[in-house]
């Protein structure tokens, strides 16, 4: 199978791969049997890039990254490879992993107040990260913590360091989580629904802050969200997940202007808009299948308007689509639809260029 990541390796040197997830599979122990939640995910993040990951609940968008960081616990059986700058990090020992986590790769979550310890002051929690990853203690750590709070736009940093999480708003707590994530000077920040629990005006503040920090530090960002708007706004490249697989991946512009997979098209059509004339929403019928009850072929086939017999045979391969450089889709039908138009020869050339 051709892998999308190889494109980046062949591209300009600026697009060097930072993190590469290869054929990641996750099975959860359900007592009597294992249920596969992730069916071989391939994803690459280039240095300084923003990769958006979208999908509905249960599609595997969060567990992909939790598994990559070894955070899934003992009930999950993980196979596949995760490489950071070419070094394998899947299955390495806990000590090495904890140096990595919060150091070179940091993660922030949806609900900041449950990620922070309610009985410790903010300052102590940030200092902990500074001690672990940078070896800073005492006055040096305090000064650095104050600088970090200032960096994420919290005024009165020294006073705020003495406060507890409950004394601050949700937006403030998310800023503190981002400050803690920055403490280890990470190369990659994984943000799992970072603004879902926040109000619209606060969401705008946090998205602006993330953009600004990324521009200044050059860190890469993986933005996991169910909100297509947030992903469209922030990402360079987008991966759409469904039923434990990546089903489409493209540059943000290509994905939203020329989506290939019927599921991606459906998601975009199901979203009400704020501008333009009001139209009836196009909903996708049915619901997301449970991980232990996936259909035999394409997992989207039962809900798909253009599915036919061949969709039920096997899960379609993740192949290049159209004439874009980085556009991949796992759908048999979308390529047939496209075939008669002039895009077909270009696609053929593309396939020759792709190293097998």
């Amino acid at each position, binding site marked *: 199978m051709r892998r999308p990541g190889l494109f980046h390796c062949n591209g300009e040197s600026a697009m060097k791969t930072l993190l590469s997830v290869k054929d990641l599979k996750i099975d959860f122990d359900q007592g009597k049997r294992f249920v596969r939640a992730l069916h071989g995910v391939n994803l690459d993040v280039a240095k300084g890039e923003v990769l958006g990951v979208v999908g509905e609940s249960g599609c595997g968008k969060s567990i992909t990254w939790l598994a990559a960081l070894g955070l899934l616990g003992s009930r999950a059986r993980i196979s596949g490879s995760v490489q950071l700058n070419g070094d394998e990090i899947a299955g390495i020992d806990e000590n090495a992993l904890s140096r990595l986590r919060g150091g070179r790769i940091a993660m922030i979550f949806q609900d900041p107040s449950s990620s922070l310890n309610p009985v410790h002051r903010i300052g102590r929690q940030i200092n902990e990260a500074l001690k672990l990853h940078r070896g800073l203690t005492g006055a040096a750590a305090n000064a650095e913590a104050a600088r970090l709070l200032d960096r994420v736009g919290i005024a009165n940093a020294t006073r705020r360091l003495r406060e507890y999480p409950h004394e601050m708003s949700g*937006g403030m707590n998310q800023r503190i989580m981002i400050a803690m994530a920055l403490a280890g000077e990470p190369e990659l920040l994984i943000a799992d629904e970072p603004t879902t629990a926040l*109000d*619209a005006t606060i969401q705008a503040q946090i998205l602006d802050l993330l953009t600004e920090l990324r521009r200044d530090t050059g860190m890469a960002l993986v933005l996991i969200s169910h909100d297509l*708007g947030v992903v*469209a706004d922030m990402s360079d490249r987008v991966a759409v997940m469904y039923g434990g697989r990546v089903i489409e991946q493209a540059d943000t512009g290509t994905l939203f202007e020329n989506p290939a997979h019927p599921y991606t098209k459906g998601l975009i059509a199901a979203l009400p808009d704020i*501008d333009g004339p009001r139209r009836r929403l*196009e*909903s*996708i019928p049915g619901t997301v299948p449970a991980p232990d009850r996936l259909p035999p072929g394409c997992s989207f086939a039962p809900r798909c308007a253009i599915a036919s017999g061949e969709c039920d045979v096997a899960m379609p391969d993740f192949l290049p689509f159209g004439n874009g450089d980085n556009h991949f889709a796992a759908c048999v039908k979308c390529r047939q639809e496209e075939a008669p138009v002039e895009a077909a020869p270009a696609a053929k050339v593309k396939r020759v260029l792709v190293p097998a």
Partner: protein
Amino acid sequence: MTDLLRVRDLKRHYEVHIPEGLFGRKASLKAVDGVSFAIEAGKTLGLVGESGCGKSTTAKLVLGLIPATSGTVEFAGTPVTAKHDAHWRALRRRMQMIYQDPLGALDRRLPVVTQIGEPFEIHNPEMSAAERTERASGLMDAVGLRPDQAMRYPHELSGGQRQRVVIARALALEPDLLVCDEPVSALDVSIQAQVLNLLDDLRERTGFAALFISHDLKVVRQMSDRVAVMYLGRIVEAGLPEDVFLRPQHPYTKALVSAIPTPARRGKRERIVLEGDPPSPVDVPSGCAFHTRCPIAQSSCRNEVPQLVSSGGHAVACHLVNDGAAAVVQAAE
């Protein structure tokens, strides 16, 4: 057309205790602070705002679930009070509610068909059990639930299906008014579209009026005939969705609208980012409550509470907009 629901200067203040100093102090939390609106029969009013702006409190006040501190709610010409007597129960029959969390609104130990038929049991006790089940099955069909799901329990259904059960139950008595408090916020995008389309279809078929509350501007625009934007317990702007969201006048609405990321706006929008958090409803700033975050606030904004001034069906509560408009009118004269 006459108004089905008329709300005038509705206020709800809570007495709260603030742990401050040695003994703390008493303060008044102004959850809703002077809200007026009207809904015509068969029309939908959308209410948007951030958390803590008083949207849900307004919904509870409208239904008479909690007493108002002052102000009046009139439903079909009769006042709605929080006195839960026979008069109120008769009114409640015509006013139903849908909440955000369907699992919390359903009884986990009853099959869904029984729950959908329950309103008949309460408001129409002489109805036979067979007819009740038949009516409930008809409702299930109307909201797109399969007959084989009738004997399922809420935990056996998906989030979207549960919300359909709640909608079916709310529509059982053919209410005139449906209050929807964040009905699709807990649902995935594809399911959200299903439920919004369902509500739209049912409204067309049965003609209920709705008070549609959401923090999501896109969803509110999709559903509403008129919209009102709330900030700290007051309506700051109201009008047609096209006017309010495409040509916002109030600085808060402008920021709110510009802050919505959508795929269509990718890369070509100017986001107005407001500084700071919304103030606590316990310490509402003097004058215009928004002046602490407003990018164009002037000294008059700090002292005087702006009134909601309507021109051509588009109402705004902002000194700068209204004085400006007045100046324009004067100049024209």
